[in-house]
């Protein structure tokens, strides 16, 4: 099946993670132009090193959920954004009852309130085009958090709500949105957790293996395509069946 894409420019937040580095070449191969965002120079270096064969076929930008007041600059510099793949997420695992009050407040402000500003800005840009597609990279933890994932899961669930409403409210203007909930992905912080848990965890996976960053990236490309535009206002779980049974 050949996928088609109405738009051209894809803003990708948190793009220096393994999924982002797997996603960018796929987008470029589809004729799209990704703008890959990271929150520090090291992330930009990671992107440059990982995508050296595609130099000139993507852009980069600074994006930090801790600096929502600077988000507007991205949209001012790139008024042609048609797609958003939102993968940025802060890292703070703790029992809710053990959370540091200040850090808890910052975590929710960055991962929920600042993300609302991102959705607002992206929506306004897309309304001008009367076209847009937004995908939030959520997590299976939004529906089924492990112990210590209370803030993470709650922030993912809240963010899914933002994207659900964007799809609901803007659908009449050709703008749709959805969430994707991957389970255990053998990449980034997921990989660290998998290494800690060892074989006991893989035995719980119905398919006997974890999800790769490339598999998530390919799913994202499909969900961005015109074919998938009716996946709107929903969050789809992609966990190999891990959370489907006891």
């Amino acid at each position: 099946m050949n996928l088609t894409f109405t738009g051209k420019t894809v803003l990708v937040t948190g793009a220096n993670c393994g999924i982002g580095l797997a996603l960018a070449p796929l987008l470029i191969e589809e004729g799209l132009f990704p703008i890959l965002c990271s929150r520090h120079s090291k992330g930009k270096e990671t992107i440059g090193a990982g995508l050296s064969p595609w130099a000139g076929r993507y852009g980069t930008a600074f994006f930090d959920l801790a600096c929502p007041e600077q988000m507007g600059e991205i949209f001012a510099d790139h008024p042609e954004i048609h797609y958003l793949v939102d993968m940025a997420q802060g890292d703070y695992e703790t029992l809710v009852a053990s959370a540091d009050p200040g850090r808890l407040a910052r975590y929710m402000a960055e991962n929920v309130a600042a993300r609302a500003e991102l959705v607002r800005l992206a929506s306004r840009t897309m309304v001008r085009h009367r076209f847009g597609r937004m995908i939030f990279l959520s997590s299976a933890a939004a529906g089924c958090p492990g112990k210590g994932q209370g803030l993470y899961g709650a922030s993912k669930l809240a963010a899914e709500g933002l994207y659900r409403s964007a799809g609901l409210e803007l659908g009449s203007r050709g703008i749709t949105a959805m969430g994707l909930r991957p389970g255990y992905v053998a990449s980034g912080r997921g990989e660290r957790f998998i290494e800690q848990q060892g074989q006991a965890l893989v035995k719980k996976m119905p398919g006997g293996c974890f999800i790769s960053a490339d598999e998530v990236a390919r799913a994202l490309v499909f969900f961005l395509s015109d074919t998938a535009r009716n996946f709107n206002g929903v969050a789809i779980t992609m966990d190999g069946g891990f959370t489907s049974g006891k």
Partner: protein
Amino acid sequence: MDNFKRVRHTLAEILDLDEGEILPESYLVRELDAESIDLLEVALALSTEFGIEVRDDEIFLKNLRILIADAGENGVDPVVAIVENLPHIQEKRAGEMVADLADGPVLQVRDLVAYVGHCCQ
């Protein structure tokens, strides 16, 4: 082209109306059937057309009822409260809004014209 004609042209395009149907006294919601998503598009289009930063809450009088209710609770004349908080609204027009509030959303095309005019000063 004067501000009214520019605003009318924008509204006609977004609301899919003939320009002749849009008068300065036309109510956006009550008569022109503008919905929330239409108003968002109008705000974005006017910001581009006039080169101004349009604040949706102000141009569409979104907090008008709260403003009037707060004024009542604090013993403040609602007309004074409107003029102080929405500087593009003249006293006479604020009085009309207070009197008209019971019949539904009071926003008229001329209020948008007043807003863009105020921002362009």
